[in-house]
């Protein structure tokens, strides 16, 4: 690195002067054995900025996010406080070759998951063949008997999928989780890019980066593909819980990008098993609903009767074939953390292929051997409750205190089938602007896949960064931020 540092004025601090990623894979400079791998050009360019300058431009960027209202809102009785998701200005870069692997791997998983869901809600061959335990699926709280025998258009259940991917110290990718219910975060992917284009055009100059602006068009087209057959000009809407939902900004973003109305439950009603929205010229038919409301709250007639967010009769309309819900109801049975452990077998069963993106080794604590192993290795393992999301309830053994491990052990013994465990993987890091300068911080990646007749992947995805030093929990609810994610075109660097 000496040659690069020598290029600038030695009296000022360049951002990466003291940067040291340790024994981890760095998204900018590669693996511990082979640093300085592919992104020297970007390194160089970052080094030409002064740290102070980087800070100022970073503050400008965050201010802009605030004024643009790219925020989530925390409401209390009297006040509404807008917060932005912390945004780190140093981009995370993915090479064309790495992206090819991710693209193929995610498509493979989505395909297998959709086939699995069809099977679960129809013939249940995979359960009868004993590849996945029946009770794990049929006894799952996200299993929806209402979906049995229902044929979703194109056989697609998961129209919008988000796959959480991590990287180990050698630089190999692993899937940590498949999100097949209502994965969020895609708006940050697109808005972060637009922000970077305005705030750091000089940093991007000369790199050939895949565009992320096509997402709305692609998703809109996929949703048209799955509209109920025989409708000449299907009406798509996005159903949001409303302004008080923390992801409301994203709902607005998506509705605008797809060019469809953003509705709330009270804007819709069902009559004769058909769905209508209330407009100034009276009721208008609705055919496809991209819903950002969980199954439980979607239809008080079918699920939680006390729900005021949903619409009475949506399930009836769907089952009659008058409405397509995206994602379909009941997909939670496929993205469950316990079912996840079986995914390599599921892929093999339906596609006769090996997984392109492997799972992290997973111990299913409902199985006695796995439980015994987990209990005796608690200080090495990450223990996760299967039903939770948002990074809650996780015990990271190597970083936990003795007291935390004791609590974890008690919970595990009390209800083993609620848990899985995985070895702790030292996640890859990315240079990140922190209080004391640019430091390595752990990142993951969530690419978004949209599926109608087939699957399209947004080139890039949400890079979440754990802003606390040493933390590997990247969820926004736990102090995570985001970065712009660049997928380079072939020969793009």
């Amino acid at each position, binding site marked *: 690195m000496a040659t690069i540092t020598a290029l600038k004025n030695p009296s000022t601090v360049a951002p990466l002067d003291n940067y040291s990623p340790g024994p981890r894979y760095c998204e900018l400079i590669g693996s511990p054995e082979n640093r300085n791998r592919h992104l020297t050009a970007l390194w160089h360019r970052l080094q030409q900025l002064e740290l102070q300058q980087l800070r100022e431009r970073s503050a400008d960027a965050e201010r802009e996010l605030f004024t643009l209202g790219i925020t989530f809102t925390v409401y209390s009785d009297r006040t509404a406080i807008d917060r932005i998701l912390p945004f780190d200005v140093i981009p995370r870069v993915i090479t064309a070759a790495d992206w090819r692997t991710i693209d193929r791997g995610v498509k493979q998983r989505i395909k297998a998951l959709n086939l699995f869901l069809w099977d679960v809600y129809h013939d249940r061959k995979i359960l009868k063949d004993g590849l996945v335990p029946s009770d794990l699926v049929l006894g799952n709280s996200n299993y929806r008997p209402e979906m049995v025998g229902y044929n979703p258009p194109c056989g697609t259940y998961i129209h919008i999928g988000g796959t959480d991917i991590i990287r180990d110290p050698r630089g190999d990718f692993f899937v940590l989780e498949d999100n097949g219910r209502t994965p969020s975060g895609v708006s940050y992917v697109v808005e972060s890019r637009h922000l970077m284009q305005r705030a750091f055009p000089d940093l991007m100059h000369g790199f050939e980066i895949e565009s992320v602006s096509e997402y709305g068009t692609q998703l809109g087209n996929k949703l048209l593909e799955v509209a109920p057959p025989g409708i000449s000009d299907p009406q798509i809407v996005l159903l949001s819980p409303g302004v008080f939902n923390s992801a409301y900004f994203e709902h*607005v973003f998506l509705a605008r990008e797809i060019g469809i109305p953003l509705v709330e439950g009270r*804007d819709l009603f069902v009559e004769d098993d058909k769905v209508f929205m*209330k407009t*100034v010229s009276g009721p208008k038919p609705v055919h496809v609903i991209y819903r950002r409301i969980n199954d439980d709250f979607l239809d008080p007639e079918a699920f939680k009767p006390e729900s005021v967010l949903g619409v009475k009769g949506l399930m009836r309309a769907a089952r009659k074939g008058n409405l397509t819900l995206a994602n379909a109801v009941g997909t939670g049975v496929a993205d469950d953390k316990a079912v996840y452990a079986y995914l390599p077998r599921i892929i093999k069963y339906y596609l006769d292929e090996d997984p392109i993106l492997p799972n992290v080794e997973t111990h299913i604590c409902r199985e006695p051997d796995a439980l015994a192993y987990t209990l005796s290795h608690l200080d090495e393992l990450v223990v996760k409750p299967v039903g939770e999301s948002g990074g809650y309830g996780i015990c990271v053994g190597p970083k936990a205190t003795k007291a935390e491990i004791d609590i974890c052990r008690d919970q595990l013994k009390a209800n083993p089938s609620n848990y899985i465990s995985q070895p702790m993987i030292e996640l890859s890091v990315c240079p990140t602007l922190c209080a004391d300068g640019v430091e390595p911080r752990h990142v993951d990646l969530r690419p978004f896949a949209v599926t109608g007749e087939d699957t399209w992947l947004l080139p890039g995805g949400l890079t979440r960064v754990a802003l606390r030093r040493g933390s590997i929990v990247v969820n926004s609810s736990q102090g995570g931020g985001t970065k712009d994610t660049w997928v380079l075109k072939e020969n793009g660097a």
Partner: protein
Amino acid sequence: MSSLLSRYAESVFWMARYFERAESLSRVIETQTSFQRGRQDNSWGWIVALYADEKAFAKAFSEATAENVIRYYMAYIDNPGSIQSSIRSARENARALRPMLSTDMWYQLNDFYNRLFAFGPNDFSEVRLSRTCDAIKRGCYAQIGVSESTLYHDETWPFFKLGLYLERADQTSRLLDVRFAQQATGMARDEGHYDFTFWTILLRAASAYHAYRRVFPHDIDPREVARFLIFDPRLPRSLAFCLGEIQAMIEFLRRNCGLKNAAPAAEQAEKMIAGLEAASHDERLLENLHTFNDWVQLSLIGIAEELGQAFFGYAQTPEAAPTPPAAKQTQSQTMAAR
């Protein structure tokens, strides 16, 4: 046929109303700051009377001092009619409407909102109040301007303008009632109606001073000032002007957007215009101004009610509306639109 959601129509209508309301309120407060200059009496109580807020105000403050009234109308969040509350309500409606708004509108509004809520006690002090009111007025102008120049002019637009002009008409009629409110609270002595300073300030509050001068170069005649603010079809804040716009927008909905259910609202507007025409022949209008203003307020409520029933779904889905129809009160919106 239009597929504008009823909820959006209602939100855009109220968003515009709240901008206009905040702007008008800052005019009224500015009027008082000019009015008290060089006078001994420094009563602000009439503003409370003007908005019929006596009861609510008494709960918040014991005395209608300048400081209290300013605080109550500028920055008191528990007063749904304060400027900060209005802009917050405008923004909440805008948030619900966000899919329909241009990015420029939303950016401008956030910028304005953040500045408004950064104002501190200093900005409401006597020395800076005028400047603060001015900044608020400008924020509202910018908002209306950016809407005019960047909002997609489908059916959303007539609802925006309907909200704007209904509120403006309402506020102009309140301005005309200031004298009455002042006398009722014992602030203005009965100097007949001739109080040169007062009527000049009133014209300025409506941004109508120079226009009036051009039409009546010789003197400030209270009778003419009142008639000017009510009947002049070229003055953007006159009742006649506002009603003309309201009628045109309702027509636009009916003809261009094919919304037949606009008919009852059109009828209401026509009735009100006929009423204005009749009032223009009233020799004792100035003496009867308060009664006339009451009629104006009720007529405007009538139009808003018809719009609510025809387009916002007040009457269509009574079971879905947890709160009573908003149009019943001109002062605040139903929570259902949040």
